[in-house]
């Protein structure tokens, strides 16, 4: 036989094994297995971030293409899932920031390390909100703040994991989460009907 047959992808292979194979030679079938494993998570994340199903459809498409193109850069230091998660969050954020032209109020949180009040007085309020109200608050919140709150309270990411996803230092992450909670609470108060 003149042409070598490619080995059939094994759907029981781990993500990392599949990626290692893909890094050796590109293969749409193997990538298809990874797609099947992560498409729902990526799509749901995009819906959560954008609140727009059509846009989430387009973003999911682009995120998988971006992942495919950048597979060679995956260095196996983190889990493949974390890597895809990081692409998803950052891609959605970039898109939202570009389209909404949101103010980039990069406060000087990166400059001075320690957070003054690490204990957050707004956390309890945030977690005891009615879900409809929280949904409304999140829809009005800046994309960056929304992303942080979703990472922390919906996906239960640790500070270390958020640092990995966003490529920020620990104090910057803590400060941004704190500020996001504050802004969410301010919005919550504005949305509260008078007298309640």
């Amino acid at each position, binding site marked *: 036989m003149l042409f070598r047959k490619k080995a059939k992808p094994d759907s029981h292979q781990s993500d990392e094994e599949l990626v290692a194979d893909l890094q050796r030679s590109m293969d749409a079938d193997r990538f298809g297995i990874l797609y099947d494993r992560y498409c729902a998570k990526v799509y*749901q994340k995009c819906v959560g971030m954008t609140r727009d199903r059509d846009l989430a459809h387009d973003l999911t498409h682009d995120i998988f293409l971006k992942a495919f193109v950048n597979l060679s850069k995956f260095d196996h230091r983190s889990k493949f899932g974390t890597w895809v998660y990081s692409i998803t969050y950052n891609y959605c954020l970039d898109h939202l920031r570009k389209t909404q032209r949101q103010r980039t109020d990069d406060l000087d949180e990166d400059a001075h390390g320690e957070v003054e009040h690490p204990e957050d007085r707004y956390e309890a309020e945030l977690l005891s909100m009615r879900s409809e109200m929280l949904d409304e608050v999140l829809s009005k919140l800046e994309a960056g703040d929304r992303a942080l709150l979703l990472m922390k309270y919906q996906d239960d990411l640790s500070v270390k994991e958020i640092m990995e996803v966003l490529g920020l230092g620990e104090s910057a992450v803590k400060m941004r989460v704190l500020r996001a909670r504050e802004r969410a609470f301010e919005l919550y108060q504005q949305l509260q009907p008078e007298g309640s």
Partner: protein
Amino acid sequence: MSENPFKIIRPTDQPPENLRKEVMGSVKLLMLLMRFMQLFMADYAMTLFENVRLTGKRDTGPSAAPPAPGSSTKDTPSS
């Protein structure tokens, strides 16, 4: 204690069925483009024949085949 409202509002939508087709179509197109890039910009001969293996003549019979590595050249006595 009440349930975390962030968990309640978590989207549960399933991705549209045509999305897989679209993604895989784009991936295949991308692979094709990358192959062409390799073909015209890199070592085109290597790319062209990467998946081709030349095999020896098959009609020469077993006696003409080279001995397997480590095998003895002497015939083993048949019982």
